[in-house]
């Protein structure tokens, strides 16, 4: 007897990709950031070990398997850490801190496959040092306060490598840019 295979049904945001960055719909701030896209460039980290976070939202279970960022030009002296936290600042997965390699290029770190159930999360980055250039996707308009309006959060607490849990970030007060960074996701579960 032939076995009839039902089509797999997935429900995702329109345009959901395997790699999501803060310009994708999963990131609420994308609606604001996309109209300021011409303001990016390269930036050094404002203070060593200080974290910056941007919230994102998943509609369906998805599995993180890589985290990545784009290095800026010039020296690659500083190491970088990138992680995903839940809404209560508990770490779901992080890169653990990685020496930069490859100027003006994306750099990806493999992570343990980590299932994220639908909900709110934070993509958080911290840098060891203030020398290396980061590719910045967007720059705040004039002040960190405008960045806070975009729901970008930061903290004055040393957070390198990214700890578990993370001291709660608050509305941006220091950062004036958002690094180019992304999450590689698989849709292993049926929505």
């Amino acid at each position, binding site marked *: 007897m032939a076995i009839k295979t039902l089509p797999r049904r997935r429900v995702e945001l329109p345009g959901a990709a395997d790699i999501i960055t803060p310009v994708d719909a999963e990131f609420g701030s994308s609606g604001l950031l996309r109209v*300021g896209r011409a303001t990016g460039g390269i930036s050094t980290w404002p203070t060593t070990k200080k974290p910056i976070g941007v919230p994102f939202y998943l509609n369906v279970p998805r599995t993180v398997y890589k985290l990545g960022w784009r290095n800026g030009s010039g020296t690659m002296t500083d190491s970088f850490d990138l992680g995903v936290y839940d809404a209560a600042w508990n770490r779901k997965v992080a890169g653990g801190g990685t020496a930069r390699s490859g100027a003006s290029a994306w750099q990806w770190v493999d992570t343990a496959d980590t299932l994220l159930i639908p909900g709110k999360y934070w993509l958080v980055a911290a840098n060891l040092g203030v020398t290396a250039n980061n590719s910045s996707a967007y720059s705040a308009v004039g002040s960190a306060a405008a960045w806070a309006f975009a729901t970008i959060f930061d903290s004055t607490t040393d957070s390198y490598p990214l700890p578990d849990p993370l001291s709660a970030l608050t509305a941006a007060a220091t950062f004036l840019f958002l690094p180019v960074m992304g999450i590689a996701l698989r849709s292993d579960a049926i929505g």
Partner: protein
Amino acid sequence: MPKNYKVPEYVWNTSIFGPDVLAVDAGGGALGNGVWPTANKALYIPVRFPVSVTLTEIAFFAANGTGNYDLGLYDDTYQPIARSGSTAMTAAGTKTLAISSYRAKAATNYWCALALSSTSGQVLRWLASGSDARFVLPTGVMMETSALPLPSAMTGVTPVDALIPIMRLQVAGWT
């Protein structure tokens, strides 16, 4: 759209739910702080959701503390859902207005409203390429003069300015 649909807690009027400025302005325009075009003018920016949503807050970003503002939200019949009333800007920063868990209907226009008392007042805004107001016309934005405080019923007309103030809505849930 399925039940239990998780969406961003905050949405901006420049997102897919509001005027698609990048679709009408191939040059992209510019995001930045800028002065209000005319004293006591209100600008009304449409937002529209594919499903029913519960709205709990509206906000804009004041880039300085000059003059007064009135921040509000209107429904599709041009009646106010919430208005802050004329309020001193006092300082730069995010200005918010709580909305009492208003259930917005799906596929229905709502209007984010902002009026400033002074042309020295500055807000975070999108400015069309070349400061050309024709880029704003297809977005559905409307304006009203002598509208501070915001009126008990909005009477919007075709805009003549090249800017759209950036507004943020807090979404508590979708149904």
